C-alpha cells in the first residue's frame, strides 16, 4: 500500500482544473438554487453551451476574450429561453424544462447532422481551441514541481489552467458574497421563502428570478469553458450525470453559503479519488474489477446525496435555521 502516492493523488484532486470547474458550476447553481430557490436541473447544459460557444468561436478565429463573450452570450440566450416560459410556473416545471433543455443541447450537439460544427459524438479535440488560451500564459514553457504536484506550465492539464480556473472561482465567490449581503440578495432570499409575500411588497419577482437564472447560467458557462480546457468538448461527458454531481457538490458544501460549493467540490473529487485508489490497492480484482471500484464510488455518491438531503440538507457549512431548501 503506497500511502504517499494515494495522498498525492487525493491532494492533486483538491486543486485539479476539474475540481475548479465543478466548484464554479456549483457557485452558479448556488445563485439559482441557494439564493433564489430555482430548481435548475440543466446546469450541464449551460456548461456544454459555454464549452461549445468558446471552442467553436475560437476555431472560427475569435480571440480569447471574444470566445469567452460568445460562451457568455450562449448561456444568456439559453437562460432567457428557459426562463420566459417557466419562471411563472411552479418550481418543478422549471426542473423538468431545464433537464430537458440540457438534453436537447447534448442530443443536438452530438448529432451527426452537426458534425462539421460540433464534431458530433466524438466532439471537438482540445488542440483545436486551446492555443489562444495557452498563448496568454505568462509562464515559461516547461514543467514546475511544487511539493507533491508536478504539472506542465502551459500545456493542457497545466498550472496555467489551475491558476486561471481557481482565480475565476474566487472571483465568483466574491460576487456571491457581495450579492448575498446586498438588498438584491435579500429580495432573492425572500423569493426563495415565499414569492407571494415578496410580490405583495412591490418587487417584480419574475424579473429577479430571470436575473438569477441568467447570472447563474453565465457562471455555469464559464465553468464549462474551464472544464474542457484540459480535455476535449465531449457532449456525452456533459450530460445529466454532470448536473447531478454539481447538485451533490452544492448540497454537500451547503447551499446559500459562499464557500460551500468550493468545499463541496474539493471533498467530492478527493473522496472519489480516495475510494478509487484505496480500492484498487486493497480490494483484489477477483472481488471487484477496476471499473467496478469506480462504479462503487458513484454508488457511494448516490447514497450520500440521498442521506445528505434527508438528514443534513444544509450541508457542511450551512446554518440549519437558514435552510435553503424550501420546506414547502
Amino acid at each position, binding site marked *: 500500500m503506497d500511502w504517499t502516492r494515494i495522498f498525492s493523488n487525493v491532494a492533486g484532486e483538491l486543486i485539479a482544473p476539474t475540481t475548479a470547474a465543478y466548484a464554479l458550476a456549483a457557485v452558479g447553481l448556488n445563485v439559482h438554487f441557494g439564493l433564489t430557490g430555482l*430548481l435548475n*436541473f440543466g446546469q450541464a447544459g449551460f456548461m456544454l453551451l459555454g464549452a461549445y460557444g468558446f471552442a*467553436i*468561436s475560437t*476555431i*472560427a*478565429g475569435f480571440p480569447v476574450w471574444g470566445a469567452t463573450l460568445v460562451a457568455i452570450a450562449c448561456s444568456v440566450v439559453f437562460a432567457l429561453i428557459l426562463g420566459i*416560459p*417557466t419562471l*411563472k*410556473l*411552479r*418550481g*418543478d*416545471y422549471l426542473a*423538468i*424544462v431545464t*433537464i*430537458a*433543455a440540457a*438534453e*436537447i443541447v447534448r*442530443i*443536438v450537439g*452530438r*448529432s*451527426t*447532422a452537426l*458534425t*462539421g*460544427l460540433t*464534431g*458530433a*459524438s*466524438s466532439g471537438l479535440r482540445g488542440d483545436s481551441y486551446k492555443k489562444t488560451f495557452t498563448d496568454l500564459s505568462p509562464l515559461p514553457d516547461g514543467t514546475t514541481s511544487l511539493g507533491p504536484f508536478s504539472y506542465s506550465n502551459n500545456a493542457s492539464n497545466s498550472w496555467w489552467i489551475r491558476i486561471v480556473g481557481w482565480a475565476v472561482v474566487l472571483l465568483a465567490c466574491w460576487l456571491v458574497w457581495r450579492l448575498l449581503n446586498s438588498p438584491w440578495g435579500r429580495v432573492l432570499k425572500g423569493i426563495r421563502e415565499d414569492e407571494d409575500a415578496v410580490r405583495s411588497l412591490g418587487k417584480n419577482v419574475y424579473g429577479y428570478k430571470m436575473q438569477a437564472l441568467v447570472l447563474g447560467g453565465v457562471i455555469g458557462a464559464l465553468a464549462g469553458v474551464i472544464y474542457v480546457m484540459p480535455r476535449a468538448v465531449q457532449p456525452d461527458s456533459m450530460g*445529466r450525470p454532470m448536473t*447531478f454531481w454539481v*447538485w*451533490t457538490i452544492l*448540497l454537500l458544501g451547503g447551499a446559500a453559503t459562499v464557500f460551500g460549493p468550493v468545499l463541496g467540490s474539493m471533498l467530492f473529487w478527493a473522496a472519489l479519488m480516495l475510494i478509487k485508489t484505496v480500492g484498487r490497492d486493497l480490494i483484489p480484482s477477483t472481488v471487484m474489477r477496476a*471499473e*467496478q471500484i469506480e*462504479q*462503487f464510488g458513484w*454508488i457511494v*455518491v*448516490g*447514497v*450520500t*446525496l*440521498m*442521506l*445528505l*438531503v*434527508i438528514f443534513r*440538507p444544509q450541508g457542511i457549512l450551512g446554518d440549519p435555521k437558514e435552510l435553503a*431548501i*424550501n*420546506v*414547502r
Partner: protein
Amino acid sequence: MLVSVAAPAGASTACAPTPETGCLSGTIKTAAGAPAVGVTLDIAGPAGPLSVVTGSDGRWATPVTAAGQYTITLDATTLPAGEALRDPGNNPRTVSVDLGSSKGALFPLGATAGGAGGATGATGGATASPAGGSEAGLDTPATGFSTEGGVSWGRVAQQTIAGLVFGTLLALASVGLSLIFGTTGLSNFAHGEQVTLGGILAYVFTQKLGLPLLLSGTFAVLIGAGSGWLQDAGIWHPLRKRRVGMTQQLIVTIGLAITLQYVFQFFLGGSSLRIVLSNPATVNIGPVFITQQSLISVGIAAVVLVSVSYFLIATRVGRATRAVSDNAALAAASGITVDRIIRLVWTLGAGLAALGGVLMGLYLNATSWNMGATLLLLMFAAVTLGGLGTAFGALVGSIVIGLVVELSNLVIPSDMRYAGALAILILVLLLRPQGILGRAERIG
C-alpha cells in the same frame, strides 16, 4: 464558421488508411434499406477503447493506430426503434486489422437469418457503394425507403405504427409516474430505474437462470411491483411522516436514480443486454412490417392499460385513488386512507414500469443499465403533455410523444428524434402548461 451547419454529415465517418493507421468501417442499413443513423459501436483492441456512431448515410469508420484483433460491439439499444440484428450471435464480432489497410465489419439488420437481404453491411474502404440499395423481400411495396429522408406514404405508415407501438409501451411507464405525482406531488426522477429494473430482471431470469420468457417476465413485473411497495414503505412513507419537503424528496429521487443506475452497472456491466437472443419474426400488415414481439408487446400493454383504466374508473379503490390525486386533503376528510392509497399507487406504478421495461426491452431488442434513464424525460414529456397528475393524460401524452419521436424521423436526423419530443415538452409548458387534459388550476 456557422455556415458549416449544412456541411455534409458524413465528414467524420470517412477514414483513409496511412502507413501509421488502419481503418475499421462499415455501413448499417435498416431492414427497409434506409440508413441506420446514430448507431453506436464500441471497439476494443490494441489501440484502446473507441466508440463510433453511424452518420446520416448509415456509415461509420474509425482510424486505429495499432494492428491486431479488434472486438466490435454494436450497441443494440441505439438501433432505430423496431430494428434488430439479423444475426445477434455475430455481435460482438472480432476482426483483425493491419496498418495501412481498411477492414470492414458487417452488422446486418432486420431480417431473420434465412430472409432475403433486407439489410446490408458494406465493408468500408473496399466497396464504396453499399449493396443494400436494391433489397427485395420483406417490405412488400417497393415504394418508399428509396431515398434517405424522403417522405413517402409507406414510410409515414411505418413510422406511425412504430410511434403507436413505442407510445403504448411508454404509456405503461408514464401512468405510474403520473399516478405517483398525482397522489404525492413527487416528481419521481428514479422512475426510469423502475423501468430498467423490469428489463434487467427479465434478462437475468431468461439468460442467467434459463427461465422461459413468460415466466421471467411475470417474475420481473412482480418483483418490480414489490420494489415499489418496499420503496414507499422504506423511503417515501417515512419521509412524508418526517414532513420532508417536496424539493428535498425530489433530490432524494435523483440520489436514488444515481445509486440504482450504478448498482445495475456494477452487477451487469455497461453494455447492452438481450432478453431474447433469437431474432423476432416479422409480420406484414399492408405496407407496414412489424415484429411479432412488438405486436405481442403492444397487445399485452393495451390489455393492461385498459385494465388499469377500468380499475381507476369503475372500482372503489380506483375512484379513491383518483380522489386522492384530485385533492388529498379533501379525500382524507371524506374517510379515504390516503397512505394506503399511496402505497397502492407506488406498487401499481412500479409494477407497470417493470412491465414497460420488459416489453420495451423486447421491443428495442435489448436492455441496459440506462434504458429507463433515457426514457425518463420522454415519460415526463408525456405526463406533462397530458397534464401532470392525470393518469389518462399520461396515456394520451405517451401516444403523442411516441408518434412525435418516430414521425420526426421523417424530417430530422434520427439521432435527434428524442430532442424533438423534448422540444414539444417545452412548447407545451409555454402554451398550455396544464397539458392537454389538465385543468387550469395549480399553475402559477
